[in-house]
């Protein structure tokens, strides 16, 4: 198998928490190499340092490659360069919207509440993935997984998750 084929197999593994996204869509598959002794070296980076899905993802990549007939696999996790939501593919953005999660906006440092101390939601409004309204409200900057925040749409009254820009 060529390195490109191996990269496609590893890249097609779905994220365990948001299964509509592949590792390629997320941008966390950093590298796939074929060593001289036939070992496939896969490099992943976590979304958040404490993300519990990281170990599961490494196991899923190994399983996918093994199923494809690769005997020797070495999956390692690197922190640098630090993952950013800017690495998510445009296809990933579309899939997230269709799944009901607002995709991340272009990365900017998390703003401080100090810059406008009496308002609470300071980042750009997330667009409601159900009705498309931008009349939305951030409920909490921390959601059901480390990478998401919790929002409510004021037009269709539905709550929704938004992917945090980091």
């Amino acid at each position, binding site marked *: 198998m060529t390195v490109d084929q191996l990269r496609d197999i590893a890249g097609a593994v779905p994220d365990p928490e948001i299964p509509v996204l592949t590792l390629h869509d997320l941008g966390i598959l950093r590298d796939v190499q074929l060593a001289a002794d036939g070992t496939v070296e896969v490099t992943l980076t976590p979304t958040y340092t404490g993300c519990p899905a990281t170990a599961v993802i490494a196991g899923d990549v190994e399983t996918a490659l093994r199923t494809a007939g690769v005997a020797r696999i070495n999956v390692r996790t690197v922190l640098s360069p630090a993952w950013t939501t800017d690495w998510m593919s445009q296809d990933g953005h579309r899939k997230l919207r269709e799944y009901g999660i607002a995709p991340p906006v272009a990365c900017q440092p998390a703003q401080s509440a100090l810059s406008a*101390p009496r308002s609470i939601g300071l980042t750009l409004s997330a667009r409601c993935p159900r009705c498309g309204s931008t009349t939305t409200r951030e409920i909490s900057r*921390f959601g059901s997984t*480390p990478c998401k925040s919790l929002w409510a749409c004021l037009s269709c009254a539905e709550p929704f998750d938004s992917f945090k820009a980091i």
Partner: protein
Amino acid sequence: MTAASLSRQPLDSADIDQADIDQADIDQADIDQIALASYVLGLGDDTLILAQRLGEWITRAPQIEEDIALGNIALDLLGQARTLLSYAGELEGKVTGTSRGEDDLAFLRDEREFRNVHLVEIENGDFAVTMARQLIFSAYQYELYTALLTSTDPTLSALAAKAVKEVAYHRDHATQWVLRLGDGTPESHDRMQAALDQVWPYVEEIFDTADTADILTALPGVAADPAALRPAWSRYVEAVITTATLSLPAPTWRSRGGRAGYHSENLGHLLPDMQNLHRSHPGASW
């Protein structure tokens, strides 16, 4: 240096010189490694112990969003702790020949071997006390990781680049709550002020350069001098406090000794909770 001589005072460079170690066995590189391991362990223990404390809020926070927020923040800190403790164990292993893993360090050390500052081990108190502690600690970590971005140690700079983005969210979370409670009702204002007064004696210890002197001398460019983080920290925190219509506390005492392993009884109560499962069922997994 033998493993036996180190195991009595693991990762404590301050005691190495006085320990009954044959000086001829130690070379400078080993002393530098121990200083680095000790520094990394201190940072790792801060994040581990605070993660454990914040986890105590889950199911007890004032609203479900706060359960989730504090759980998420604890998880980020635990992720940082895993990187730091693994690295500390690896560095220690280079000198002793037997490295301890992250779980060994988290679950099999006793109170005197923990190197965290006192701030992170104090009890959660009411929600205002936890937010006061979060403001102090996340603003400190924000400056710490910003400084470590340029560390010459590749593991520390890589972690810093990752963690500074997480900590920016933690700092913002604490800021929003201190503003809301301080500039809220008379009751919330008084309790927020009482919380600041309660945690402020623990601030000085965080910025105590003496605790980091070994590593700053041994390996310049690797660690961040805590005292140098203070001005930017003060600017940020004091602006929050002023905007929240609160006043800056003037404590009459200060904590010290956490980095040398001297702790309050709070840590003694926290550790059995954190370590019991691992010690009762070694190697348990699910």
